[in-house]
């Protein structure tokens, strides 16, 4: 039976559908609750913290033994700044936790918090990205006088010559506004102190439980063994739940201090104010093209607003350095020069959000191709055809090695599927009725499943990347797969069960996947960066193959055959070419209880494997058809098509689900969602009435065509697929809007392309025409 490739309904679902899931707030019922008192200003000096008599307020003074969150990049262009769990002297963004109170119930803790007065003398904050780079800007941190916390620079030797010899130089200024990953479940934790062994168990809504335990132990100055971190059911993360946040440190400190169970469940407002933001980026780029449209050289100034602090463990380098390394995307860029800066401001800290920098760099490259095609009088598909990478392995100017993909073929398939000539006819006809239709495409690469080499290249002091899996067949013939990855909605338990079921000839329902518990799983990195199927999948395949080998050895001995003759299938070990077979459960029992009969059973039916791949590139082409209402600036997406190549599909239904969700977040990025600060650093979008995630009415039907390039860069043939939808959709939609507004000659260089921005662009185009 082949389980790989089947759209098996998920093993995770019945529990969740019945309301029996355990999210962290569900585990907080009998705990005391803490409530943080947060800074009402973006920047200021703390003069005092006042509490009414009888109210205990915890402040920095109580946490004097606790270290600062201080992630490190080992590169000379990085300035490490420390983030205190609670600040003692100054606040750096509106919403920063300054103190906390505790009460038996959450509502009572909120009442107490309202009685705490933070005496903070406000100072002029630095909020805007480019304002923070002005020579007279006030430093957010004294360690970084120019507000630059990290800077990547490179320039290939032939760049100047490329520009000197160009037939056309295309320049673009692009702006991506700030967003929130906004998982449906906010952050939260329940810390339980156990008197018996003096250990503290933290249940927390996180993506990297092992890393969180390491960070907590380091900051609290205790052995990791004193702590256990469990990620129970997690209501979405999208990168926001990777980081070590001060609130978790305070929570565990308090549980150890009071020796009691305490919980922190943040509300939506706190999540918007103080969890993490992303995508606040400005890119200025120049592309040098020859007359045939070949991209000879690319020069870029990339700025990312990384907020007040550096997120742990990935650091504030995550957006700027990914932009720096991956800007060329799927294109052959011969000469490259880039400067990429991470800029600190008095705003919420930047952390990864699904796609990290690549939605913006894809928008950049796809707008560049469109503009170059217009300038040179070329077909926009043809110019991409001439520039897309087409031989593998391909080495980018920044040293990335692309494994086999289908960059051109995916684009051709997408263009054929949408029937471009027919669309152009519809578009022309609509225009005669005063309706503006547009079609936009976006071709991109998605670097996925990368192990330690990629993170080490970034200079990270803590180098994530590998995964370990522990695979055990118990005496009843059931499997336990203990993984270091930590899924939170991706369906990884089902996909891994399918994978190992094929290795061992059992059914997926016999495979129990255990994740997210530092006591029960091997050290691993968690689920992020489109990595789990590739890396935890690869390690699962290796570990289960080792168990299969042991099973074959025992079966061969029991049935007097050779190991090479044993096939594991349908719950049986069969001797090939005979009718002899033994149920796997009997072999499992014999291996456990009759082990004296077998030699070489070292490790028994419990085997561990480690996998640390170099990485692989998925690729895709997105096509959006839109109609723009030029009177209101409203955009309606009429059609959305994805041609995706993520290698082998383990569970096609789950893959499609990842694409759907990713595209929806990409549409949100393109048209709707924006975190807005006022000039004083107050967040104006701290509720779901102001920050606008799309509903079912804004998301069109998403059509998907799969291609399957099987690369040898991964053990399973599967590439990562978690982020692609989010990466490609904004560029396709913005290109479609620009196409629709071609009669006005309008450029859209900012996301989200809100009605206000589209109207402003149309107005300015009309004014220019009248001048």
């Amino acid at each position, binding site marked *: 039976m082949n389980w790989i490739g089947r759209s098996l309904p998920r093993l995770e679902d019945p529990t969740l*559908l019945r309301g029996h899931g355990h999210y962290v*707030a569900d585990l907080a019922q009998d705990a005391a609750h803490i409530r943080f008192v947060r800074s009402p200003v973006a920047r200021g000096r703390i003069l005092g913290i006042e509490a009414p008599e009888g109210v205990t307020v915890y402040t920095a003074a109580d946490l004097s033994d606790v270290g600062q969150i201080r992630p490190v990049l080992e590169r000379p262009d990085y300035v490490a700044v420390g983030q205190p769990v609670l600040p003692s002297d100054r606040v750096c963004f509106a919403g920063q936790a300054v103190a906390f109170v505790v009460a038996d119930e959450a509502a009572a803790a909120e009442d107490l918090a309202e009685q705490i007065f933070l005496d903070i003398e406000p100072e002029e904050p630095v909020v805007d990205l480019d304002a923070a780079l002005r020579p007279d800007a006030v430093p957010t941190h004294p360690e970084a006088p120019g507000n630059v916390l990290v800077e990547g620079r490179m320039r290939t030797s032939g760049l100047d010559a490329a520009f000197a010899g160009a037939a056309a130089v295309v320049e673009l200024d692009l702006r991506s506004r700030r967003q929130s990953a906004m998982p449906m*479940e906010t952050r939260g934790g329940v810390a339980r102190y156990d008197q018996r062994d003096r250990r503290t168990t933290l249940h927390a809504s996180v993506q990297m439980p092992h890393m969180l335990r390491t960070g907590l132990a380091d900051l609290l100055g205790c052995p990791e063994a004193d702590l256990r971190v469990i990620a129970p059911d997690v209501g979405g993360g999208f990168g926001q739940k990777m980081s070590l946040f001060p609130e978790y440190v305070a929570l565990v400190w308090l549980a150890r201090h009071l020796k009691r169970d305490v919980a922190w469940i943040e509300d939506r407002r706190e999540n918007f104010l103080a969890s993490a933001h992303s995508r606040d980026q400005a890119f200025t780029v120049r592309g040098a093209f020859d007359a045939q449209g070949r991209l000879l050289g690319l020069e870029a100034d990339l700025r990312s607003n990384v907020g007040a602090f550096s997120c742990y463990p990935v650091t504030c380098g995550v957006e700027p350095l990914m932009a720096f390394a991956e800007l060329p995307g799927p294109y052959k860029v011969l000469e490259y020069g880039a400067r990429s800066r991470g800029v600190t401001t008095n705003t919420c800290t930047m952390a990864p959000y699904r796609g990290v920098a690549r939605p913006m760099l894809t928008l950049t490259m796809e707008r560049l191709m469109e503009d170059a095609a217009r300038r040179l009088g070329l077909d926009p598909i043809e110019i991409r055809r001439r520039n897309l990478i087409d031989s593998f392995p391909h080495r980018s100017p920044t040293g990335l090695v692309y494994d086999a993909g289908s960059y051109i073929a995916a684009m051709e398939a997408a263009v054929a599927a949408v029937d471009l000539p027919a669309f152009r006819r519809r578009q022309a006809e609509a225009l005669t009725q005063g309706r503006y239709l547009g079609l936009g495409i976006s071709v991109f690469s998605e670097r996925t499943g990368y192990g330690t080499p990629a993170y080490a290249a970034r200079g990270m002091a803590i180098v994530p990347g590998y995964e370990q899996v522990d695979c055990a067949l118990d005496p009843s013939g059931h499997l336990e797969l203990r993984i270091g990855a930590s899924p939170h909605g991706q369906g990884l338990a089902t996909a891994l069960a399918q994978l190992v079921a094929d290795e061992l000839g059992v059914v997926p329902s016999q495979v129990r996947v255990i994740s997210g518990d530092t006591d029960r799983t091997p050290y691993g990195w968690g689920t992020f960066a489109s990595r789990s199927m590739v890396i935890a999948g690869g390690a699962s395949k290796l570990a289960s193959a080792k168990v299969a080998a042991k099973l074959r050895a025992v079966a061969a001995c029991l049935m007097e055959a050779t190991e090479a003759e044993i096939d594991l299938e349908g719950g049986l070990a069969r001797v090939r070419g005979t009718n002899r077979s033994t149920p796997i459960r009997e072999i499992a029992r014999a291996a456990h209880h009759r082990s004296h009969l077998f030699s070489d059973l070292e490790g028994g039916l419990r085997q561990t494997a480690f996998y640390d791949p170099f990485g692989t590139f998925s690729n895709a082409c997105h096509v959006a058809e839109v109609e723009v209402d030029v009177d209101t600036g409203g955009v309606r997406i009429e059609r959305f098509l994805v041609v995706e190549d993520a290698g082998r599909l383990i569970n096609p239904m*789950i893959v499609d689900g990842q694409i759907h969700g990713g595209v*929806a977040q990409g549409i949100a990025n393109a048209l709707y969602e924006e975190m807005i600060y006022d000039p004083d650093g107050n967040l104006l979008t701290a509720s779901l009435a102001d920050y606008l995630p799309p509903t079912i009415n804004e998301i069109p039907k998403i059509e998907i065509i799969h291609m399957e390039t099987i690369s040898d860069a991964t053990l399973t043939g599967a590439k990562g697929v978690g982020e692609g939808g989010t990466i490609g959709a904004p560029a396709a939609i913005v290109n479609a809007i620009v196409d629709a507004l071609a009669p006005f000659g309008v450029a859209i260089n900012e996301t989200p392309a809100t009605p206000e921005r589209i109207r402003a662009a149309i107005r300015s185009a009309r004014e220019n025409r009248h001048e």
Partner: protein
Amino acid sequence: MNDRLAITLNVNGQSYPVTVEPRKSLADALREDCGLTGTHLGCEHGVCGACTVIVDGRPVRSCLMFAVQAEGLAVCTVEGLAEGEALHPLQRHFWEQHGLQCGFCTPGFLMLAAGAFEADPTIDEAEMIDVLSSNLCRCTGYQNIAKAVSLALQDMRAGV
């Protein structure tokens, strides 16, 4: 504010005598006092709909209703949707169509669709999709939620 009131909540056909502050939301009472944690809180200001339950035959955002207002009314939560081992058609189709990923918004969507059907058994597919636009999901892009609800609507109409 701390004067608690003794009330009885009728949830999924069971009586729950509880003592709550008048300001306590129905969602908090269901979760904390009845132990029914399948009702989730995503925003606590009435936008995301994760906390949707059915009150007297209509879908209600339980974060915007006080527990004391629910006294004497019939409340149904996600825990009451299945009949024993048999999943409700909505649950079955959400499972088969991959209508959930992280599962946090799922109880709200299930109760919203079930409540909309209960309130108007003649509701058509387009009206149902419009009703679904009152809740937020961050994982699925709504594609498979729409599919699952359409299929379940057919089954519910047919009484399957």
